[in-house]
């Protein structure tokens, strides 16, 4: 245990000064220590209670260099490597694979090719999923929806996305994202962790490890699940997507839930009020401190600070989730749906509130994009559920001056085929998984607004210009947050493991502001 310069008692090993807390708190503690000595024995109790309230006062510091508040394991690295454009990120994950050619990747020529087989030259030799591999034909299904041009940039956007259309000048649209995985589980793992197999840390965990916390009473990395619509094909997500892999589990995402406790086990049980809880904690802390004095195990000290953090979270998380003070303008922007916990709009609003409160990384999952059939029935629902929330979040961040240092990312795990899965009629079609190209967007800190990057062929089947593989996509995200993806490493199994994996990855400079 390192000797802290403020440590007043070198013979007694580690003290509160070695805890991962803010420097100024340590200063105050040192002062308290002096007072404690002055006050004598009873002062110790007061001291701990005072420390607790003291820690509580630093709720909203937003200091990028604050130490981890989430545990005692491996210290975060306290990066960045260079001055970041973005301090935090919000990742809107469209699980299932949105059909790019129905939303943002406009292909006007397809209409003429209705029901024609996709040329072999385009399809090439490719392993298909088990679902369409046996299909007799691969008939082209042009998008059912009209596209119009929007904004100063004149970006083509489908009628399905009237709200997204309003903010195209702020977006960095990437049409050339591509992946190596063709089924959900490996593809979603690849997007989130840079590897198709489980066991690797996800983007949020890398950020937590690399950058540490910006606040003292909320987790660094939070995950929100949006309500599923039973009509949609809701591919599962699992905790391995927000797992810390081989990094310490304190860097795993913490779920903010829409039903029950917003954070698991957060609420005091029936019959325990805040006063009882405080008294209970004071007693626990007091005895734990005795234990520390008796046995000298630094873990005991760490436990004390974690209990205090838990206590603070019991206040700060409900405060986070309490929307009663949101002004009418919020509801005008997000829509009334945002009042209902768990809707995508609600989660977008939460993401903004977390950004304000110094949560480093927020990931919002919206499932249901796996439109193997009935695209004309399902896609309008999916877009209606998400379009306004995305717009509201970006606009809200912008209005509050937060967009400059917040990176917002919108992506699924792959795209969908231009040919129809199952039967094709003038009114309806299905689309299978398509890894070779899909459309994503980013906005905010670090990326160039109002551009469209990369191009696909006339069938939205192959990338023809500026491909962005998943590893480059992730390298670029890290770059915006001030991290060199080659340097954010962790030695595991002898290798310097990193989010972008072993195949060389590059930051896509064309995306950067």
């Amino acid at each position, binding site marked *: 245990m390192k000797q802290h310069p403020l440590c007043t008692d070198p013979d007694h090993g580690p003290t509160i000064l070695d805890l991962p807390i803010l420097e100024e708190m340590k200063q105050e503690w040192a002062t308290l220590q002096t007072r404690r000595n002055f006050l004598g024995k009873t002062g110790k109790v007061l001291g701990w209670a005072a420390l607790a309230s003291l820690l509580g006062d630093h709720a909203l510091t937003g200091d990028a260099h604050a130490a981890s508040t989430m545990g005692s394991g491996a210290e975060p690295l306290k990066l960045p490597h260079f001055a970041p454009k973005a301090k935090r990120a919000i990742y809107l994950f469209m699980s299932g694979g949105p059909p790019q050619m129905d939303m943002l990747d406009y292909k006007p020529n397809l209409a003429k090719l209705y029901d024609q087989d996709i040329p072999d030259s385009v399809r090439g030799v490719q392993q298909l999923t*088990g679902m369409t591999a046996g299909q007799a034909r691969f008939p082209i299904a042009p998008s059912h929806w009209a596209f119009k041009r929007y904004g100063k940039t004149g970006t083509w956007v489908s009628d399905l996305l009237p709200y997204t259309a309003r903010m195209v000048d702020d977006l960095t649209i990437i049409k050339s994202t591509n992946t190596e995985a063709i*089924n959900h589980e490996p593809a979603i793992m690849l997007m989130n962790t840079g590897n198709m197999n489980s066991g690797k840390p996800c983007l949020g965990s890398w950020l937590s490890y690399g950058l540490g916390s910006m606040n003292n009473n909320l987790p660094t990395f939070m995950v929100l699940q949006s309500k599923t619509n039973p009509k949609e094909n809701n*591919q599962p997500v*699992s905790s391995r997507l927000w797992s810390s892999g081989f990094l310490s589990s304190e860097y795993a995402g913490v779920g903010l839930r829409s039903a029950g406790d917003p954070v698991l*086990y957060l609420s005091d049980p029936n019959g325990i009020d805040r006063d*009882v809880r405080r008294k209970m904690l004071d007693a626990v802390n*007091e005895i734990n401190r005795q234990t520390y004095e008796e046995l000298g195990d630094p873990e005991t000290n760490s436990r004390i600070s974690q209990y205090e953090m*838990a206590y603070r*979270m019991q206040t700060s998380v409900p405060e986070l989730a309490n929307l009663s003070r949101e002004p009418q303008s919020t509801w005008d922007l997000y829509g009334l749906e945002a009042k209902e916990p768990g809707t995508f709009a609600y989660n977008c609003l939460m993401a903004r509130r977390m950004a304000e409160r110094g949560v480093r990384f927020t990931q919002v999952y919206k499932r249901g994009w796996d439109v193997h059939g009935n695209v004309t029935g399902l896609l309008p629902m999916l877009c209606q559920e998400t379009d306004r929330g995305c717009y509201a979040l970006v606009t809200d961040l912008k209005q509050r001056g937060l967009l400059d240092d917040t990176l917002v990312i919108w992506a699924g795990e792959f795209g969908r085929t231009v040919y129809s899965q199952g039967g094709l009629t003038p009114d309806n079609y299905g689309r299978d998984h398509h890894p070779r190209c899909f459309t994503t967007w980013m906005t905010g800190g670090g990326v160039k607004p109002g551009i469209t990057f990369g191009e696909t062929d006339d069938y939205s089947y192959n990338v023809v210009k500026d491909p962005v593989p998943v590893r480059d996509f992730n390298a670029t995200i890290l770059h915006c947050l001030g991290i060199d993806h080659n340097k954010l490493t962790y030695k595991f199994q002898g290798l310097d493991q990193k989010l972008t994996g072993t195949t060389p990855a590059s930051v896509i400079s064309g995306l950067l502001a």
Partner: protein
Amino acid sequence: MRLLQTKPAPFLLAGLLLVVGALLAIAVGTNRHMKVGAVKSSKHLDFNQDVQPILASNCFSCHGPDPEARKAGLRLDLEESAFRKRPGKPDAIVPGHPELSELVKRIESKNPHHLMPQSPQGEAKPMKPEEIAVLKEWVAEGAHYKPHWAFDKPIRAALPDLQGDVQDKDWAETPIDRFVLARLRKEGLHPSPEANKPTLIRRVTLDLTGLLPTPDEVNAFVRDSSPQAYEHLVDRLLIRPSFGEQRARYWLDYVRYADTYGLHLDNNRWIWPYRDYLIRAFNSNKPFDQFAMEQIAGDLLPATNLDPIIASGYVRSGVSTGEGGTIPEELRVNIARERTEAYGAAFMGLTVGCAVCHDHKYDPTTQKDFYQLSAFFNNINEQPFNVSKPDWAPVVRIPKPQNLEAYNRVLAKRSELVRQLDTSQLQNTSLVQHWLASGQSPAQPVSADKLQLRLRLDEGGGDVLKNSAPRASPASFPIGKFKPQWGETTWLWPDLRMDTSTHVTLGQIGDYEWSQPFSSGGWFMLRSAPTSPAPKVSGALISKMDSTQHDRGWDLAVKKGIVSVELIDEAPKEEPVKDPPKKGAPKVKAPKVVTPRDRTPMRAIKVSTAAPLPTDGHWDHLFFTYDGSGRAAGIKIYVNGAPVVTKVFSDTLGRETIRTQAPMQLGSRYPDAQPARETRYQDLRVYARAMTTEEVKRLPYEDYVAEITSKPTGKWDRDQWHIVSEFYFDNVDASSKAIRAQIEQMDAELGKLSKDGNLSLVSQEKPSIAYADVLTRGVYTARKERVEADTPHFLPPLPTGKPHNRLTLAEWTVSPENPLTARITVNRMWNEVFGAGLVETTEDFGVMGQRPSHRELLDWLAVEFRESGWNMKHMYKLMVMSAAYRQSSKSTPEQLNKDPKNLLLAHGPRFRMDAEMLRDIALESGGLLVNKVGGPSVRPYQPENVWESVGYPTSDTTRYKQEHGEALYRRSMYTYWKRMAIQPDMDAFDAPMRDTVCTRRQRTDTPLQALVTMNDVQWIEASRALAQRLIKEGGRQPEQRIKLLSDILLSHDPPPQMAATLKTSFKQMQQHYAADPKAAHDLIAVGEKRSDSAIPASELAAWTMVVSEMMNLDETLTK
């Protein structure tokens, strides 16, 4: 000068050593995360301990075992290559001459372009000065290499001589302590005195049973002043059923046990009987060698009861999927890989998975080693996808208790027969040779008369298929631009599968008239792909049919397992098959190619098998003969050489023509149709004559055997030997045939006896040879080289003359020559008990793993383990009997400073308990715990919306259905383990997802944990139950109750300060709840167990809070 450097003068050496010694103190400390200064007194550096870690972490990624990553042709992990001359390049290492060694120059270079090491991006990452000093000294000493320590067989070291250690001489009681003390002495540290008896009994009871000692047990132990008191206690604990539960609980992490498949639907599966097997094994103290063998290959061991078979579920306990889009071959490769990594982690202590894509960068594990190892797990008789069912075959049914005895009797007899069969087959070379030499012509080829097409499909690659019929015309068939998939499975030889759009057009072969007798068929593996529900393949396997002529022609087709032969002049009008419309799915448009079939009657013969083929995904030989009679009766269908019962669907062909110009197709009906999905082919034939029954019988095997036996045995390869011996034992050897018949009978009997019993996933070996393909960069389609199952080249070889299968691997795993198994196993035991392994990286004994803190102790324990007959209880007892274990856990600043992780054990182990133990002791303390061993997993309390928020709607684990009563209070190891959303309270305390092997859990300390123990209904209910107990049993005074509380949870009386704090707190709580009766009622109503109404609510509530405080103490949560 030269002389001086090779043999330095004594005074120079002394000076040098001083410097190096001082530097080493830092270097070694850094390496082990230990601030222990190892003052070197010996003359030479130890390569393994001092040098290799520096080389490994700085150099091996570019100059190590992986040839693809190697730079400048320099390899530093092996002595011979490190000293090898590289043309035009300076010598990397000149032993004895640091100044001439390029290695030294590079690590000290001032030129950033020359400076080593460098990152893959070419950035210099200079070594630490102390590391440079060590390498220079090592080169100066002669750059002596030694093999990696963990790959050398452990040798029992002599116990350290501790004479002269006056201060601690009485401390060391057991051999373990001698080693521990010797090491402490080296670092200038001293051990701690023995912990007091209450601490000791709590510690050892928790370690051995996962539960707390009762206050009575504590008292009895404290009162027992006999010198054997502690040992007697240990002996009592070792025979408790909870011992087996506690050990099995750790083992479940080592074998990635869970109750769901872990991917996609994450559906339920049945494998909990394997968990119960583990408990039985630990409790009966099954020798570890047998224990390991049963898990790796229990299905191949002789069994007198079901345990070895259930144990073989180990292999299959990893993740798998049934996702509809799954590509079976990719999944098959992934599953074999997963099992190999799991075996590597749990039984070798190596990160073999690093060699999936390339040779390991640090360890000598080559990519080929990896795939050879994976081949052992690549030969299980299963479909790669689980079809989302809980009974992913192979499974075993466990007979009901009343049938158990009879079952075991039959099983024992069966095992004996299998043993006889194996024994005779092991001598197959001599038996087969005897048979060959006997002069009775061993196998007759089937006459090739009028054989017009024979596609052996043994090309194994490329896009031209050879027609190997005599005087074949045409002699080959080019495939279009869509290539087939070659070699995914091996049957006779690596097979062919037609990918989407692949077409094999066979021209005008098979253009027969109705009056022409002909025969056709081959080997097929029908559709191996998941969908739910799984429809069997539908489509033509061989066809010469004209869609524009009302399907005129003939084909061999299969539909939902029914095999049909059609001879058609004009097809019968069939209703187009419609799938029932899916909800929300688009209407299915009629297929584009439609033949108007409005004319009746039609003229055709259609004959089908009466019963479907039993399963998809297996190789079957399907064949038919037609006698040219124009009648349905003239068609015979054979499955695996035997004629089968058929049904006639149409017999109206008469003398109408079946000739057509449409080209013959393999795997599809028409030239423009898609090939049958996921169907594999081998040796297709068309004869222009009606084969006899006798001939068809010989086609599936005898024909190949004849082909092989016509060549001298010396020229046979492994596959050919295999085919011949299979044939010999199936068809020639009378005794084998008889035994097989008996075995079949017994299988039927076993089936009857175990009807309706519980299922468990098990392993079952295929009869074929265990192969795997080395895959370029691990990509499942990029097959590079086919390899047979084998162990890594740097470890002892498999015994000669044994088949390379899982059984031999299992035997090898626990053979005395294996340097790893005993070491990694005792190390994990040590980790369980002491909180950190002697090798901290329990999962990695490779080059990058930590070096052992006590190498000689580890090896001593490993040898002791093996020589004790792999006696697990003996090893646990040795560890907990040691003075090192029994020390007080109080630490001094000096100890903390020198050895913060307590790896040297200057004080006793002290660490936060695992998730399961914490919940168990909470339940136990209040008397809630239900002590029932084994059974199906249970679903206790869980916060709402944990499963629901992540699951797939049609999964059978989407909704968490909490149980009631007993199920709420079972030990945590019985809690249902859903991989995609594990029990959140256990998740908070670092329980792993069990997607992969975990041999040591993280031990974090987070606010989320505090929220669990403060707020989870389970903890509040347990607190209230214990509060009730205090009120009833603890006496009337708060002091008395607090004493009992402390006695129960901490096993000792509360120190005065603690008692005072709790009493003050109790008073506050009492006041609070007296003033707020509603809050009191609310609090004591938490949980499903009713509270005792005889106790006033405010009193019970106040005590519940005091207990909760106690349960949240660092000391309570800590072992």
